[in-house]
């Protein structure tokens, strides 16, 4: 657990389990960028191409 991090409390039989929550700062850079395509354009691309399937 870390200072300012969120936790999940799990109630058991006579005990409470405290588990740290993984946050986005633990996941930095975990998605591969697409070569030649700007991340800034990603949202506009999705708006144009979004389809419910």
């Amino acid at each position, binding site marked *: 657990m870390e200072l300012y*991090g969120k936790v999940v409390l799990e109630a058991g039989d006579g005990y409470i389990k405290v588990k740290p929550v993984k*946050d986005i700062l633990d996941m930095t850079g*975990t998605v591969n960028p697409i070569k030649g395509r700007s991340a800034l354009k*990603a949202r506009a691309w999705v708006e144009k191409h979004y389809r419910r399937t």
Partner: protein
Amino acid sequence: MVYFLDTNVFLRILVREDEKSFRECKDLLEKVKKLEIEAVTAGIVLTEAGWTLGSYYKISRAAVAEKLEGIVGLGGLKIVDRYDWGRVFKFYGELNVKLVDAVIAAMPEVFKKEWTVVSYDEDFRKLPVKWVKPGEIRKLGKKAPSDAS
């Protein structure tokens, strides 16, 4: 001051494509986590981040769910969903903006300029909101005591 974080702030952290914007967004989210600045986002932002990660970056559903859980799990970040749909349709119908941007701009606190939108999206120029880019917040530093309310 309360900051409303747009989708691209979270995407820039997850997709480390550009070092400058990655650093700016990481600094910003670290400040949110340490409660140095007050920040909110909305379900519509999580939805858009999910669409983008799944359809544009082609990551699996399980991975999308994990990343979105990571956003919600960030200490200090509140999720607020209050929309003025009448205003959304007006903005979307009259201005050349993305639907999600119109939804964000129509949130009562954003429209009343009580919250400042944080985004790299230049479309916010066209909307009647207070808007800054992530790097501009960095210069503001720690929350002033008068901002504590």
